[in-house]
């Protein structure tokens, strides 16, 4: 680390005077080797390099030159068995490990539920199940809550007072929508080839509300008691 205060050695190829050290095609061969090594999905053997570089090039010399040029840069050329590959400089490895969170793809079921919540909001769990025709596992809703894209917005004024779900601003943000009404309608889904042009006449897609933050007439706001019930206020032992 103390040594790293030394300035980066500029690539030699840049300097006019430096390029005179090698014949032109050596410099060009270095460029080629660099590109091949960079793009390859696995370490490249000298034999494989030789097959792609112009004939008569001293492959070993080219590789060693690439290695020398990258010696003190942020990436180095390293030898892996009898092949060569670029790797992050050892002292910068901390840059790579930092919050290397694996991005997860949403499952098909989660996408379906998310889309139904987006289009049909405010919507209860039972309504989601009615639309999908299958039961929605608790895990799916939990996952969606975890994304921050959906929220509990209130309770329906019907027996059982089921919780209603809706989308959040983070949802709009992630999917690049200005407002929830920008979700394409039935004609656009047909036009884009996502929906069959021959849907039954009674098939419809709801138009999401202009302002999704406003509760509808048949919704009550969630109150503290509800939040407690839902385990949002006081952490309770939940078996899951």
């Amino acid at each position, binding site marked *: 680390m103390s040594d790293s205060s030394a300035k980066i050695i500029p690539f030699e190829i840049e300097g006019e005077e430096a390029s005179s050290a090698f014949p032109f095609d050596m410099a060009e061969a270095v460029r080629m080797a660099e*590109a091949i090594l*960079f*793009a*390859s*999905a*696995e370490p490249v053997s000298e034999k494989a390099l030789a097959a792609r570089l112009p004939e008569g090039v001293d492959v070993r010399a080219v590789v060693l030159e690439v290695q020398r040029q990258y010696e003190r840069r942020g990436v180095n050329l390293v030898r892996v068995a009898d092949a060569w*590959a*670029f*790797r*992050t400089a050892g002292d910068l490895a901390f840059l*790579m*490990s930092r*919050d*290397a*969170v*694996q*991005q*997860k*793809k*949403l499952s*098909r079921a989660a*996408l*379906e539920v*998310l*889309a*139904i919540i*987006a*289009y049909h909001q405010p919507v209860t769990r039972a309504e989601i199940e009615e*639309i*999908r*025709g299958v039961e929605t596992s608790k895990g799916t809703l939990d*996952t969606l809550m*975890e*994304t*921050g894209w959906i929220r509990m917005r209130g309770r329906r004024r019907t027996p059982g007072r089921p919780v209603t779900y809706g989308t959040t601003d*983070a949802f709009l943000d*992630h*999917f*690049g*929508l200005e407002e929830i009404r920008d979700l*394409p309608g039935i004609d656009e*889904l047909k036009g*884009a080839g*996502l*929906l*069959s042009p021959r*849907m*039954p006449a009674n*098939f419809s*897609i709801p138009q999401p509300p202009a302002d999704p933050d406003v509760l509808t007439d048949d919704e009550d706001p969630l109150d503290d008691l509800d939040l407690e019930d839902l385990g949002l206020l006081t952490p309770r032992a939940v078996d899951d």
Partner: protein
Amino acid sequence: MATTPAKNAVPMERLWSENEESRGVSEPSLVVDVDGFEGPLDLLLALARTQKVDLSRISVLALVEQYIAFIEQARRMRLELAADYLVMAAWLAYLKSKLLIPKLPGDQGESGEEMAAVLQFRLKRLEAMRDAAARLVNRNRLGRDVFARGMPETVIVEKHNEYTATLYDLLTAYAAQRQRQAVSTVQIAKRGVWSLKQAREVLTRLVGDVQDWTALDHFLIRWMTTPEQRVTAIASSFAASLEMVREGLLEVRQDSAFAPIYMRGRQTETRRNREPADE
């Protein structure tokens, strides 16, 4: 076919020209093949190119005549023409009349020259987009001409959320699932005929429950939702029951012609000799 891709300035990617070759205008005989064209404007553009001048210098009148001749020949050959082509032909015939008859003073509406200019604008704009597409696909493209790091070493997380999905994923999932539901609902609503397979499934499920002789109708009443399905349900289950009798799963009995048909599950060995089934 003789359409020379007119845009020689731009090297064409293969797929582009192969489509071009299969399209059908040749001069002067005008061999008709509408299939190769993407609509009337595309056909007009191809015809315009046969004039071998810049689009701004073509004779619109000649183009109109070429197009109308093309359509008329297609009709003589009884080729099926999409309505679009005929609408365009009608519009062009109108344009032709406008061009030939000088505009009268006090005449409302667009002059023939204005209409011709709009047509030329549209042709030029379409051709410009074609050229643009050709230039685009012939650029250095990622994964074809230039490459990304082959061995990426890390996942750079740009956003805080762990989950990722695109709007396209979302819409695809939604449309597919709504469609699936809608279609299955429709099938149930519209089902007018019991298939043999369905009837057999029903019977197989019921046979276990039935120890005593029961009228066939009795089974079916429980399954029928509408009076319209009665006939088909009875016919299919009867056929299915005969099949099951042959396989030894079921016994059936009918006391006289048009009398109710009774059936029951195949009895165990000990009871079997008491009442052999009628054929």
